[in-house]
């Protein structure tokens, strides 16, 4: 029966028998061996038994068998065709390891990732609201009128659409018109309540006080 405290020495005994145990562990093991007859006996077995076991050989089926088996395998693989390459992660890893360009490639990849992260942080995907109001505010009065006219054409018969570009429907129509003339293919339009005072004032200025009149 192996004692519990001897268990930690089992792999060390194997290495010691093979002559590959690290010096610091060897000292520790040798101190243990002085007082442990079980491990001493194990060490003797680990040293002597493999040599005795290696004399045990399986029966040799003979040269004719080896030759015939090689021929059979060779015939079969010729019928199988060429083994197919698979592009897996491991293959890419190996290719990179072998390549002299691995550091430049890694640096470029890191730079691209950093740029992507910066782009997402600076312009989050869900922030189209701000860009719509900003871009609408940047349009001059003539352009807004043109867009509103186009919007009216898109949604005929609705008088309330006239000259209220911060109104949801007008803005959507204006954006649709913008799409038509190839300007701003944007998805979402802000509510008036989302706009800052400065934006509303600027819109008032552009539209000659239309917003104030409505209010």
């Amino acid at each position, binding site marked *: 029966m192996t004692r519990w405290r001897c268990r930690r020495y089992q792999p060390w005994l194997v290495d010691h028998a093979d002559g590959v145990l690290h010096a610091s562990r060897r000292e520790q093991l040798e101190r243990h061996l002085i007082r442990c007859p079980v491990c001493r006996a194990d060490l003797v*077995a680990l040293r002597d038994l*493999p040599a005795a076991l*290696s004399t045990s050989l*399986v029966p040799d*089926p003979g040269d004719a068998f080896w030759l015939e088996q090689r021929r059979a*395998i060779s015939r079969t693989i010729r019928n199988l065709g*060429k*083994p197919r390459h698979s592009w897996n992660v491991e293959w890419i890893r190996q290719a990179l390891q072998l390549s002299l360009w691995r550091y430049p490639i890694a640096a470029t990849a890191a730079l691209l990732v950093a740029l992507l992260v910066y782009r997402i942080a600076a312009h989050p995907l869900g922030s189209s609201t701000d860009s719509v109001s900003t871009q609408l505010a940047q349009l001059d009065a003539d352009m807004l009128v043109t867009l509103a006219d186009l919007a009216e054409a898109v949604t005929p018969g609705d008088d309330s659409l006239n000259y209220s570009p911060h109104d949801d429907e007008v803005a959507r129509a204006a954006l649709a018109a913008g799409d038509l003339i190839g300007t701003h293919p944007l998805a979402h339009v802000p509510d008036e309540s989302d706009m800052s005072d400065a934006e509303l004032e600027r819109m008032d200025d552009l539209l000659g006080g239309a917003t104030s009149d409505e209010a």
Partner: protein
Amino acid sequence: MQPAPALEDAELVRGTLAGRRADFDILVERYQKALYSFAFRFVHDHEQTADIVQTTFLQAYTRLAQFSGRATFKTWLHQIALNECRQWHRSARGRQQVSLDDVHEDTLTAATQTETGSGGWKSLLERLIARLPLRQREVLTLRIFNDLPFKEIARVEGMSENSAKVNYHHAITRLRAWMHEGGE
């Protein structure tokens, strides 16, 4: 004229993947006997062993592109052979085979005494090895008969290097105990 230096396994694998099937023939010749002796210790039947060796090489050929090179080709090949042996053990034919694991210890001791007396030393060792638990037998066989280092054995077995050494330790000490019992 000096003989041409033997090509490395990795080079032969690359050659095979590039379409040079003769390179794979060299690999077969190089590892055929090692795989046979490995498989025979699990199967104990010539025909079955020959089948396992052939299937192992065919599997290796068809999956050669998946060989990553992290382990040596020899280790990878033994891993495939080991899977084939395990599959054979699970199969109906493997279960039908009389397992030495099932033989009662007293019976085995009597048998070993008889065989020692009749000079069947090698046969006795084979019987004792066959009686080891499968995992210990695998580790012992890979270490002693197929000369794999523990690091590679750990890869083949899917265990840590430490576990491989502990299994080997158990196999050796168990064999020693059985041999003492048989010789008394």
